[in-house]
């Protein structure tokens, strides 16, 4: 890992964005042994307002605590995708919840219907954020699956460990499939872009 790796999780209040940020930060910091800072910004509403969590991770002590140029953006709704995409590095990774994000700004966007999976597979919309954490784990090489699982289980309510472990796994598997399919299909446009 380089000096700084910056992640932003964006969505609306009630989607568990801040909790995801905390779990990701704990996975990286407490289990992964990195320096980590998590910040957030949110509106006055407990539900429905804009919600955002930044996680900055580094091998060195972190000065500026907020994200400057994102290595990874997870957008759980259209608004956060539109608003934060411009903060993404050119080679940064964009992951969207395609349940809500219908218009993506780049063909490189990794589109996974986290909420739909949560609804249909687990009958619990609330685990969409945990599924997304599984996807992040799979799509980046910043954190091991083992550490992420430990961090998730340390934070979720007692009695929901299995549900959350399964949700995390579902995120990993789905992301792996998406990644593979994109590798097969999307090489062409990417090369085309480079020529352009």
């Amino acid at each position, binding site marked *: 890992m380089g000096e700084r790796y910056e992640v932003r999780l964006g969505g609306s209040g009630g989607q568990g964005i801040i909790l995801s940020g*905390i779990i990701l930060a704990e996975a990286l910091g*407490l289990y992964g042994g*990195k320096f980590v800072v*998590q910040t957030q*910004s*949110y509106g006055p509403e407990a539900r429905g307002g804009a919600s955002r969590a930044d996680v900055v991770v580094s091998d060195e002590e*972190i000065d500026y605590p*907020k994200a400057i140029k994102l290595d990874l953006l997870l957008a759980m709704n259209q608004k956060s995708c539109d608003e934060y995409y411009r903060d993404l590095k050119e080679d940064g990774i964009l992951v969207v919840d395609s349940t809500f994000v219908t218009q993506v700004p780049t063909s490189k966007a990794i589109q996974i219907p986290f909420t739909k999976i949560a609804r249909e597979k687990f009958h619990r919309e609330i685990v969409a954020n945990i599924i997304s954490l599984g996807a992040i784990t799979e799509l980046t090489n910043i954190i091991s699956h083992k550490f992420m*699982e430990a961090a998730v289980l340390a934070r979720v309510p007692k009695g929901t460990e299995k549900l959350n472990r399964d949700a995390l796994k579902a995120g990993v598997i789905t992301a792996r499939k998406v990644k593979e399919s994109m590798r097969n299909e999307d090489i062409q446009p990417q090369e085309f872009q480079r020529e352009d």
Partner: protein
Amino acid sequence: MKKRRPREFLMQGNEAVVEGALVAGCRFFAGYPITPATEIAEIMSVKLPQVDGTFIQMEDEIASMGAIIGASLAGTKSMTATSGPGFSLVQENLGFACMAEVPCVVGDVMRLGPSTGIPTYPSQGDVMQARWGTHGDHPAIVLAPSTVRECFDLSVKAFNLSEKYRTPVILLFDEVVGHMREKITLPRPEEVEVIDRIRPTVPPEWYIPYEDTTQGVSPMAIFGDGYRFHVTGLAHDIRGFPTLRSDEIGPFMDRIHRKITLGFPEIQMGEFFQLEDADIAIIAYGSVARSARRAVIDAREKGVKVGLLRLITLWPFMRTAVERVIQKAKMLIVPEMNMGQISREVKRVNEGKAKVNTINRVDGLTITPQQILKRIREVS
């Protein structure tokens, strides 16, 4: 499963303030819900009863401040925490604590003001209010953490200073620091130095509650100790009784200021970062100091000799530290999330010796390293 290291936590600034307070011996908290300080009250409400302490949610911040002064007079280390609108309300009784010399700690997590402003957006707009918010001439100790670990350390320090100097201490930090989570390692409680107020040892009939001493701090009896003394917000004589005599009021006012002045070496804390050869010095505090630090590192990579004076103690203002910095650096940059509150102090101390540039931001966004770098480029 992966084992975590002992005493290592991902912790929020507000949470670290609570942890520090508890280690320092705080056993009473009175507060009123307010963004972005509410976590302090919430965590206190969980943790204080676990250690036989008391949490109470009062009807407003005026009441919270009154309650913590009462608890402290009864011998319990106490604190409240609030944000701008509530900080305005605590000012009345904060002055009482200065006047009656009652140790207590007040946290102010600064949000965008004035008035209701934006509750969830950061600011550093309460710097002057922390100094001069309550009426009349009074001493003030104000500490400004910029990391989560420092929230812990300065919370302990705030209690220690307040007990030692018998004065309220304000812990002043912006929303970014209050809500930021960082991985930190906390010391074991037994590793932390805790200072308690000096109690009288003389028999009650000999006790003079506001007697002058070499350090200007009188031993403090507590209610129920058998000393049966009088406490008032009126100007009082050394026995604590109201007085109208100027020859008693004058020495009293001198003493409550002198006790802080004598403590400067201990009270005034700052961090000198890469200042030895710096032509340009940034003076910053709170979360902005973190941006400044990044800007210093980036500018030095480009060969610009920049340094940072990070103010940990905002009040009493670190005149000597600034004077030291301007001996070499003739260009100062003071970035703040306000319209220029500490920069006024810097200019006052500077007396025109160096050029003072300000970066001010009151739109709810933090000052970024890039913004400071840009100014460094402009002035270098």
